[in-house]
């Protein structure tokens, strides 16, 4: 998985919290397909219908703040999101995404946010820490994962890292 390509769903705002990603009333649900129906319901109830498998989200600062619910990355990955690009992430969302192997939280430089538009097609190259914007032919840096995180990503999740084998 050195390179992945996907279409952008852009959410400008900062501090998109897990109460918006999966509202509290659905916390008792643990079936990923059921959770996926409510992904981003607090902002855009139509979101699940707009996503194709492999798509990306590009969002403002501190994505995934608030509750520790792993329902949030589960819902987003089940709906088809492969990576989320943001200038910063809330720590538990970041960990959940990596350790559960659900999707990639990619930290971008703050000025990159305004350069990526809704529906742009991006290609993320993890070995080069580079993001290509196929739509407008620009390229951006991604903040490299710390070594341990990179190894967990490579393995496909924390348990696979422990076992020394890939998912």
């Amino acid at each position, binding site marked *: 998985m050195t390179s992945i390509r996907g279409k952008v769903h852009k959410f400008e705002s900062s501090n998109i919290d897990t109460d918006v990603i999966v*509202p509290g009333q659905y916390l008792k649900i643990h079936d990923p397909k059921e959770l996926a129906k409510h992904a981003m319901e*607090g902002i855009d109830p139509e979101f699940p219908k707009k996503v194709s498998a492999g798509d990306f989200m590009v969002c403002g600062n501190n994505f995934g703040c608030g509750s520790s619910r792993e329902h949030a990355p589960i819902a987003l990955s089940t709906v088809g999101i492969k990576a989320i690009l943001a200038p910063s992430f809330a720590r*538990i969302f970041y960990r959940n995404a990596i350790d559960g192997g659900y999707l990639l939280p990619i930290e971008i430089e703050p000025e990159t946010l305004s350069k990526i538009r809704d529906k742009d097609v991006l290609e993320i190259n993890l070995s080069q820490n580079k993001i290509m914007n196929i739509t407008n032919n620009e390229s951006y840096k991604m903040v490299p994962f710390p070594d341990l995180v990179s190894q967990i990503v490579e393995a496909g999740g924390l*348990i696979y890292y422990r076992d020394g084998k890939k998912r």
Partner: protein
Amino acid sequence: MTVTEKILARASGKDRVQPGEVGFVSVDKLMMHDVSGPGVIKVLNEWEKKGKKLDHIWDPEKVWIAEDHFVPNADKVSAENIMTLSRWSKRFGVTKHFKYGLGQYGICHTLSHEEALVLPGQVYVAGDSHTNTTGALGAFAAGLGHTDIAYVLMYGEIWLKVPETLLFKITGTKPNYVMAKDIILKIIGDIGTEGANYKTMQFSGDVVERMSMDERLTLTNMTTEAGAKNGIIEPDSVTESYLRERTTAPYSKILGDSDAKFSEIFHYEIDKLEPTVAKPFSPGNTTAARELQQVEVDRVYIGSCTGAKFEDLQAAAKILKGKKVKVRTEVLPAAQSIYLKVVNQGLANIFIEAGALVGPPTCGACCGAHMGVLGEGEICVSTTNRNFPGRMGDVKSKTYLASPLVAAASALRGKITDPRDILE
């Protein structure tokens, strides 16, 4: 090293750790509840299906389980989740399972201190973001998701990045109408909801030294809302006497070194701090309560791990005594032990005579689960910790976060009210 760094050094078997270092630390205590628990169990079951041997967990003595979010069972699905937890704790021999309707139970973060389940110097992880609360006891306490909790249940360790520490020195004379809630809302308003991302928030200063444990817990509880990895207060005589009343278990206090390095030090002189409220839709959207006295409210909610400890309820009772609420008001003590005190010490009478509802311990409407969720357009003053869109119910409802004094005063007037306008 700071107290957090010293705890993490101890837990990783090293003499020293530096902020930014990433590595595995051993865990002393773990908790999951009726929302995170079934998710954790699902992860464990999937690992078992893929060939992981799961005949035992790391250490059943170090694990405890709370039933708090959707209890008393809100519906069939909640009931099934509680049954799943009960079967699991029985299978793995976890005896510290606090079941509702069966003795002591309550909100997980309240039980952790009420029952002294976590001790100074320990590493405590739990499947809930407000795990930070327990750092008031001088422990490293941080929230994790399902996969991480499942991993700790199997191996007793977890990876962490050693956080930088922000020190908040709070000094002066605290006015009697100001509570820890006002102080922490003021701080979050200043540094923002990502002001402490990945970092530790440590509290010190003479105001904190004089604070009771219940008040200290409000400070650490809300560090989550500034993005902090953990909140912490060094253990002292207040910590010791609090724990002495609750446990005989031995512990060794860990304190920071006198030459500890902080990435930033913030000074707060609070003599003139006013009762503070966070407006919708962010805990960082703060202003003085008096600026909002025209805001009419539909509901007052006095509950949660943040705002329904015994002293929170004493504060509310001080305002409500002998008066009548003007809007729907709920009082939900955070644990059964607190509920009993509320009854024994006459607070329940005060609340009920004032017209408020007194209900069982539960996370309830704080997280939009049940027991008083808000409808479209409803406005609530709440002693809870978050006010994101939809947090307490409908996405078009509005929550104003406040201290128990402000919440109770607002209940009497039906508008956001500074407690000085009632007390003085």
